[in-house]
């Protein structure tokens, strides 16, 4: 009887998930307090928790600054990536002209662009945005390209027969809506890569605020490891929220017609 009830309880949604999280935090606490005993090496969860209260004033400004860098990079990445992806997917000549250049640039790690970001743009928000841009643009470009390549010929034929002959109209009325799921996937992947670049991009003191700047340039040199962990968790949570919000918007609004089949 009791065993059955316990099993029933465990089967409820979220129960096992919460328990496992709690156990992990508990083990972390135990190890930090009783084994390591040095908060410079492993700060305990309760110290991290307290750090959030101490940093209450700083956090909103840091988040806003980082989001600004992120938005600059992602926005530029989306505009450039989608435009080039569409051109290359639709026009064979554009593909042949640009493909080699892109294949040479693409494997360069985004962080290797930091020197030129600083030289070209200076220590500004846009310089951090530039690094995010380099990280985000290629996944967006390649996914958009793939979407345009995959446009079903039947849809093009059907549109032509219905009087849609101009290339610009075929792109607008057939290729773009068809490719939206691909573009959405590209942006999602680009968001992930861009966010990873963000922390390193802020390392160079492009601004006096920012999650990555605070973590790497202030907390770490001062050995405030509890605060480092607090910001690490914050960075993870914000990325998670951004991803969920994007997915919700795209799945529920933009891609209703593909319910259940979109962006895994």
């Amino acid at each position, binding site marked *: 009887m009791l065993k059955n009830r316990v099993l029933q309880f465990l089967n409820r949604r979220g129960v096992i998930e919460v328990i496992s999280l709690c156990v992990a935090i508990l083990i972390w606490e135990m190890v930090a307090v009783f084994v390591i005993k040095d908060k410079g090496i492993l700060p305990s969860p309760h110290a991290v928790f307290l750090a959030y209260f101490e940093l209450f004033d700083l956090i909103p400004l840091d988040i806003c600054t980082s989001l600004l860098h992120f938005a600059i990079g992602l926005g530029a990445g989306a505009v450039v990536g989608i435009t080039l992806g569409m051109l290359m997917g639709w026009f064979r000549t554009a593909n042949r002209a640009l493909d080699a250049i892109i294949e040479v640039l693409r494997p360069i790690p985004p962080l290797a662009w930091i020197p030129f970001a600083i030289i070209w743009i200076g220590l500004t928000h846009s310089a951090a945005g530039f690094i995010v841009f380099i990280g985000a643009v290629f996944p967006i470009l390649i996914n958009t390209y793939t979407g345009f390549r995959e446009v079903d010929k*039947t849809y093009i*034929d*059907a*549109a*032509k*027969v*219905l009087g849609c002959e101009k290339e610009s109209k075929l792109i607008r009325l057939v290729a773009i*809506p068809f490719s*939206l799921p691909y573009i959405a996937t590209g942006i999602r992947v680009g968001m992930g890569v861009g966010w990873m670049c963000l922390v390193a991009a802020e390392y160079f003191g492009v601004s006096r605020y920012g999650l990555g700047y605070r973590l790497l340039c202030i907390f770490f040199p001062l050995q405030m490891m509890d605060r480092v962990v607090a910001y690490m968790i914050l960075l993870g949570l914000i990325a998670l929220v951004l991803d969920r919000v994007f997915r919700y918007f795209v799945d529920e609004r933009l891609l209703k*017609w593909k319910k259940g089949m979109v962006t895994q």
Partner: protein
Amino acid sequence: MNHKLEIRDVTKTFETEEGELMALDRFNVGVKPSEFLCIIGPSGCGKSTLLRLIAGLDEPSSGTIILDGKELKGPSPDRGMVFQEYSLFPWRTVLKNVTFGLELRKMGKQERYRIAKECIELVGLKGFENMYPYELSGGMKQRVAIARAIAPEPSILLMDEPFGSVDAQTRNALQEELLEIWQRTKKTILFVTHSVDEAVYLADRVAVMTARPGNLIKCAGIDIPRPRKRTSVEANEFREKLLMWLSLERSKVQD
């Protein structure tokens, strides 16, 4: 007799890796106004190629296609087409699929919706206007495809094995509905099929094609009065004749 559509000496060759492939060889056929013409033949005989040429999606290598006394150039909404594959735009609702051709004519929204709703009702899908194609069955999808093709009021309807991928019962129902639409709208219909039963049930006249290169071997009128019974003696006799022509053709290919 004035022809609605006339295909004169049309040849179509495709470039392939193994050299030139002749899909149609000096093909000739005429279609009368409001006629229901079925084109039947073995797979790969160029039936679909012929429809694509008439639709303006491909250009003939030589020869001319004349519609209403004018030579055809490129696709245009005076020819509607229903494809073998499901060709509904999955990102548009049923209603918006049907309005697609009307939007391109810069028709006002109210007018567009009114016509589209009429067409949707005509194919028996009233109440499904706001559904997306993924929510529809195969038969329903093809009904919407028919509604979409007739909404811009083409004078001729080209159908490329439209019921090829639906089950037998649905197929029969769709055939009956199509006849009803045809009788109501008086459209000229060119219907490609590989089903003898379908041709005998639907057509005023049936054109039998040879395999590669495609050519016409027989063009015969079916004067069984409508409404037809699928199992009537006359229908069976005609079916027998059609099958014989087709098998003659097949044995020629094998020799």
